[in-house]
């Protein structure tokens, strides 16, 4: 319970007035460990060291680029899921809008519209899906787990219908494609930028504060006058739009649009990343930075084991076990860190 709050401003980590100046090294270490994300950073570094010792190619430019591709799309989605999880909801359908958005862009482009306009149309459709999820959940009081399970199938069917089940080539418009994911590292730059912006929104804006309040104490927040319905619906929209944007970036990167892209795989990866990064499924707690790092850990695992040549079948077993170990480690480290606080 007694965790450091990242929603608090930077100044909060200012050290309490200490009598004599103790070892400054110790002070830095303690400051670091007080951050909720510290444990996940430790796990990530340990994994990097392990894989680098197992295979020298792990830290090669080539592999770092592959790794960045593993991380980017999932991290963008996990930023959206964190906001929803914090206000006590979840979106299972985000992997389906991930596939839908680039198709909307594709068909808009076929109809003669510029790619950017198509992209925006795709994101608007995602926003409408999010709005739908939010309205059903908030107004009709259906648990979001059920609402978004419904839209998951609905959107999947829609995408398959309009695409007739076949992948298409991503239209090309030169620099637009490069900026929106095709250039090397473009996708990860977007992911980092989105994570930074979303962390600022979460920690330093009223929207973020009200999101935490909504998830922390729904009744209390509404008694104080927080419009909890608006907060929830807004975060459903946000999550959906981020999902669609991630799918579009990916379509630019791999130059094809697949109706079966994303799906529940990427959604569960994003939620797992968020949870590994310290987001509580019960609401009220979580950080975007943590989710980014959690996604990074999952991607390191996937990439590292692929590099070691582990077969696809055993890979899932290892990944599943690794997720559990990562979560247990994270919890242990957190408890240990809290015990160390005076």
């Amino acid at each position, binding site marked *: *319970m*007694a*965790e450091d*709050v990242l*929603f*608090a*401003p930077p*100044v*909060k980590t200012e050290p309490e007035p200490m009598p004599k100046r103790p070892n400054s090294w110790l002070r830095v270490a303690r400051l670091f460990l007080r951050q909720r994300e510290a444990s996940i950073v430790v796990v990530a570094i340990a994994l990097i060291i392990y894989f680098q010792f197992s295979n020298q190619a792990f830290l090669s430019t080539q592999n770092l680029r592959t790794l960045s591709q593993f991380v980017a799309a999932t991290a963008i989605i996990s930023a959206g899921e964190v906001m929803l999880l914090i206000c006590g909801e979840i979106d299972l359908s985000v992997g389906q809008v991930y596939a839908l958005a680039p198709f909307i862009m594709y068909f808009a482009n076929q109809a003669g519209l510029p790619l950017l306009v198509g992209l925006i149309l795709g994101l608007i459709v995602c926003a409408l899906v999010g709005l739908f999820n939010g309205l059903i959940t908030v107004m009709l009081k259906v648990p979001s787990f059920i609402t978004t399970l419904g839209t998951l199938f609905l959107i999947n069917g829609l995408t398959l219908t309009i695409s007739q089940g076949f992948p298409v080539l991503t239209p090309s418009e030169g620099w637009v494609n490069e900026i929106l994911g095709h250039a090397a590292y473009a996708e990860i730059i977007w992911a980092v930028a989105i994570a930074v912006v979303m962390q*600022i929104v979460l920690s*330093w*804006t*009223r929207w973020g*504060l*009200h999101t*935490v*309040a909504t*998830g*922390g*104490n729904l*009744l*209390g*927040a*509404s*008694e*104080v*006058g*927080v*419009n909890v319905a608006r907060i929830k619906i807004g975060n459903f929209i946000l999550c959906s739009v981020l999902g669609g944007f991630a799918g579009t970036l990916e379509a630019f990167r791999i130059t094809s649009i697949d109706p079966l892209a994303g799906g529940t795989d990427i959604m569960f990866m994003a939620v797992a990343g968020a949870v590994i990064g310290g987001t509580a499924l019960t609401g*009220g*707690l979580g950080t975007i930075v943590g989710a980014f790092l959690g996604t990074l850990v999952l991607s390191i695992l996937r990439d590292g084991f692929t590099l070691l040549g582990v077969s696809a079948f055993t890979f899932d077993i290892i990944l599943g076990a690794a997720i559990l170990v990562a979560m247990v480690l994270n919890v242990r480290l957190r408890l240990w860190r809290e015990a160390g606080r005076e």
Partner: protein
Amino acid sequence: MSEFTTTEVIRTEGLIKRFGAVTALSGVSLYLRRGEVLGLVGDNGAGKSTLIKILTGFLQPDEGRIFIDGKEVRLRSVSHARSLGIETVYQDLALINELSVYHNMFLKRESLLNPFPLLNNQRMRRLAREYLGHMGVNIPSVDTEVAQLSGGQRQSIAIARAVYSQARILLLDEPLAAMGAKEGSLIMNLIRTLKSEGQVSIMMIAHNYAQVLEICDRVNLLQHGRIALDKPAAETSVEELTELVMREYRAGANQHRRAAAGL
């Protein structure tokens, strides 16, 4: 009469509120004068909190009328009531465990770093420290998560939030429930100070009749969803209030006994 209505900050007429089969309020008519401290007493389940939640815009009445400063209003939301100068300390305190003390104190009226839409945490932290110091409340730090505070400390924060909000009308739902003797008297003193300044009007729910009579100008007893007694505090006593409540209780018990005997 006309002289009185101009000084009434709140008047309700025939407020009715039902929750399914339960009728929490069955026609509450009361008033609160400017600068007055009104004590609202009544048994558990009498409907006191329901009344407060209607006056704060959180619940909508099924029937009845509300007048603020003599003008009829329909309180649409908590924000609407707040814009009319009404602030509340809820019985459940409405604090967010995951947020710091100062974020709780400024929830829904955050200071921003204009022109940026970013929180001015420095300012909120400083003001929170100032208010709590002013109140004489002891907490480790305004950065502490509310989850880590004691019941009385939490209550102080909810009270500070309402009192230092420039509200004209304060609704306090059992503000002393979790207080120790020292903190309790701090809050009593705070209410006395507010009263002597005469700027705010206070409606306060409490179960301790002695405290109510000590601090309030007037007492209303809520029974079965109605105001059963309305007297200046000086003209009633702990004995009278206790007797009224016990009479009701006995009547209820007899009714039960008759019903059980099939009469």
